[in-house]
């Protein structure tokens, strides 16, 4: 009597190879496109050495180890210098409100420049993004200012 036994190790049919490979291609392509890419555009003009700029009228935002200081020359609200704590949960809203008020009368691009100086090298990226987002939401044009270190001997 012949008993037909089914082999456990059966080779898949060769005709299925292309299907398997095609599915693998789709799998890898889908995996590759999962990376997050949504974010925020930011325009930071090139630094130009223009001595004619009216630096005295430029709005300054300084990030120190503990505070964010906004300096608005000729401020209409009578408070040219305002200091905000870095840990303040409402920092973004307060900055946006202050800068919106300061920029409301400034029409030209040159007048809307806000100079950002980071006086703390360890300022985290998320805080810097929060501050620059507030400036852009208020309609300001960001320019980076680097603190110059002078070695005295």
């Amino acid at each position, binding site marked *: 009597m012949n008993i037909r036994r089914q082999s456990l190790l059966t080779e898949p049919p*060769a005709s299925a*190879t*292309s299907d398997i*490979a*095609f599915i*693998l*291609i789709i799998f*890898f*392509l889908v995996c*590759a496109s999962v*990376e*997050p*890419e*949504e*974010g*925020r*555009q*930011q*325009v*930071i*003009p*090139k*630094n130009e050495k223009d001595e004619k700029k009216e630096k005295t009228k430029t709005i300054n935002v300084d*990030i120190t180890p503990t505070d964010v200081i906004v300096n608005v020359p000729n401020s209409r609200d009578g408070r040219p210098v305002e200091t905000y704590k870095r840990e303040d949960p409402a920092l973004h809203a307060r900055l946006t409100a202050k800068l919106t008020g300061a920029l409301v009368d400034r029409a030209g691009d040159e007048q809307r420049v806000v100079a950002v100086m*980071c006086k*703390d*090298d*360890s*300022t*985290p*990226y*998320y805080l*810097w*993004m929060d501050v620059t*987002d507030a400036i852009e939401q208020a309609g300001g044009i960001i320019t*980076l200012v*680097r603190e110059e270190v002078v070695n005295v001997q």
Partner: protein
Amino acid sequence: MAMGDIAFLLLIFFVILARVRDDSHIQWKPADGTELVKPETMRVSVAIDRDNMTYLNGTLLSENADSAAIRAMLSSKLYNPNGAPGQRGLLGDLPPGRRTVLLKIHRDTPYRYFEPVIEAVSEAGGELHHVLEEKN
């Protein structure tokens, strides 16, 4: 059987192509943001990981370079005004509006590490696109 070989070669081709610009191996966590938009182009990406290492299109720039060296390296790779047409760097021959540079910077990266990157991209005429996470 030839169909299987062709499909397999195609698979290898796509995987290698994807790895060339792949930066999925970089360990980073995005900062929070609101009203996020998709980038117009994705030709160039610069990333800074949890250990403050800088990558250009997924390739580590240098393990122990200081910020000035990182700035110089990035500037020369992004834009070389003295190069021949087609050899002016990654952004050199692209028209405005298509010079987007994706910035994937770990949320806690200190200023001294990300400032040279932002400055180099701006100086090269790149359009910054910070990759962020939608704030809840």
